[in-house]
């Protein structure tokens, strides 16, 4: 088997579409993961009873079940229950929800590092709970959690590859389709791997900047 440059050029546009979907799915799922993760962390901290129990249940559920199982459940089982959702929204929501569980752990960890003294200062200044969260705790949590959160966004980005299993045309899906169609797997999968790797680089750059800053 030899490397065929003509074939490479022929399949590049299709892989380009895969890159586009990968970026869109990663961005949308990240927004859900970061936002929902924050909401879960706040809920866990504010509530002493039902809210906290709900959050813990959520964490165990979505960290315990492989995302592929969740994807298949939503894609094949929900329609039988009368709920049909297209593959792309399913992919975005499942990854978003799963990574929200991980992100909320990160937020909770960074919330613990915010000294009780700052909360005391909020009381002494009579800040309402909303102001305390909005202006003090959330910005500090986000600032401290940023490197770890970025790591999870990076894993989420890689995990978008599994969405090919329900037919989302992410990069892995496109590579798979091309291989299947032409019975040639060398170029599509090699290119897919190389492109995934290259797309990692901006994340790694930003992460290294964080490390420099806090070194």
């Amino acid at each position, binding site marked *: 088997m030899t490397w065929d440059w003509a074939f490479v050029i022929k399949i590049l546009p299709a892989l380009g579409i895969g890159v586009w979907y990968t970026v869109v799915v990663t961005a949308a799922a990240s927004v859900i993961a970061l936002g929902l993760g924050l909401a879960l962390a706040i809920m866990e901290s504010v509530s002493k009873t039902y809210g906290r129990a709900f959050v813990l249940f959520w964490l165990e559920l979505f960290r315990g079940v492989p995302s592929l199982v969740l994807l298949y459940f939503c894609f094949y089982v929900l329609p039988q229950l009368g709920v049909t959702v297209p593959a792309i929204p399913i992919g975005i929501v499942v990854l978003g929800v799963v990574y929200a569980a991980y992100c909320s752990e990160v937020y909770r960890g960074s919330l613990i590092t915010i000294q009780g*003294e*700052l909360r*005391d*200062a909020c*009381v*002494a*200044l*009579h*800040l*309402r709970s909303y*102001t305390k969260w909005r*202006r*003090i705790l959330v*910005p*500090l949590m986000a*600032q401290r959690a940023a490197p770890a959160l970025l790591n999870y966004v990076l894993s989420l980005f890689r995990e978008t590859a599994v969405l090919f299993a329900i037919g989302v045309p992410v990069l892995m899906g496109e590579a798979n389709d091309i291989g299947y169609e032409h019975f040639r797997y060398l170029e599509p999968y090699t290119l897919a791997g190389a492109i995934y790797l290259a797309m990692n680089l901006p994340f790694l750059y930003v992460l290294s900047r964080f490390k420099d800053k806090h070194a």
Partner: protein
Amino acid sequence: MLSATNFSQQLQFESNAVDDSMDEGGAAPHAKKMMWSIEFEKVSKSFGSHQVLVDLDLQVRPGEKVTLIGPSGSGKTTVLRLAMTLAKPTRGDIRIFGESILFDADKKGLSAAQESRIRRRCGMVFQQYNLFPHLTVLQNLILAPTTVLRQSKAQAVESAMVYLRMVGLQDKARSYPAQLSGGQQQRIAIARALVMKPEILLLDEITSALDPELAGEVLDVVRRVAHESRVSLLIVTHEMRFAREVSDRIAVFDRGSIIEQGVPEKIFTQPENERTRTFLQSVLDH
């Protein structure tokens, strides 16, 4: 430019406002009794089985400067934290200008809004400054006035600048706390408490994290507040010279209660209680 006189006028003006509200009578349920700015009545506090305060009675007059001294672990910080509602007493009542910060007239717990309204007359400065690290000095100063007192941003900035000048740090408005020395941070923390125009200010060992020369600049600020304003001060400090100079009254704490109190002259020159003498000897030797 606002000068020191303007600052004292501003605080003078505030203290008039206090007197007015007291004359209104009906404003507070206990208005007819002697009005203490803050009053502890038979307050006890335990952490688990460890009883930290035992039936504490302590009253502070409006404008009075009271300093709590006593050995480590005797419960001084706990008194201030209870007053600021950072902790709840196990028994007893605490009143701010006659209104309980724990119960309503029917002895039921207060709603968050009621509690906030009553304790808003009280401010606190901490040993570790506790400035918000991600906000600039100016943002630290205007956050509470704009969100709690609902001042306009312009109003809040103007008032913040008055207090920054008063603590001598008007040129640091745009700095972040980490860019300032400990003494400067603590002066900012004092200004941040003052912009809320408290009528009672609680100061918990505000110089004990500082080198002596930085402590001096912070104490100078407190001296000015003490002399130029009519805010009540409840101070915890290990700086005996400062306590003597600035206080109207000294209360000596030992194992969760006041063993002796009186004017500084008396406490420092003719203490009656044997344990007061021992304590003063141990701190003055250093």
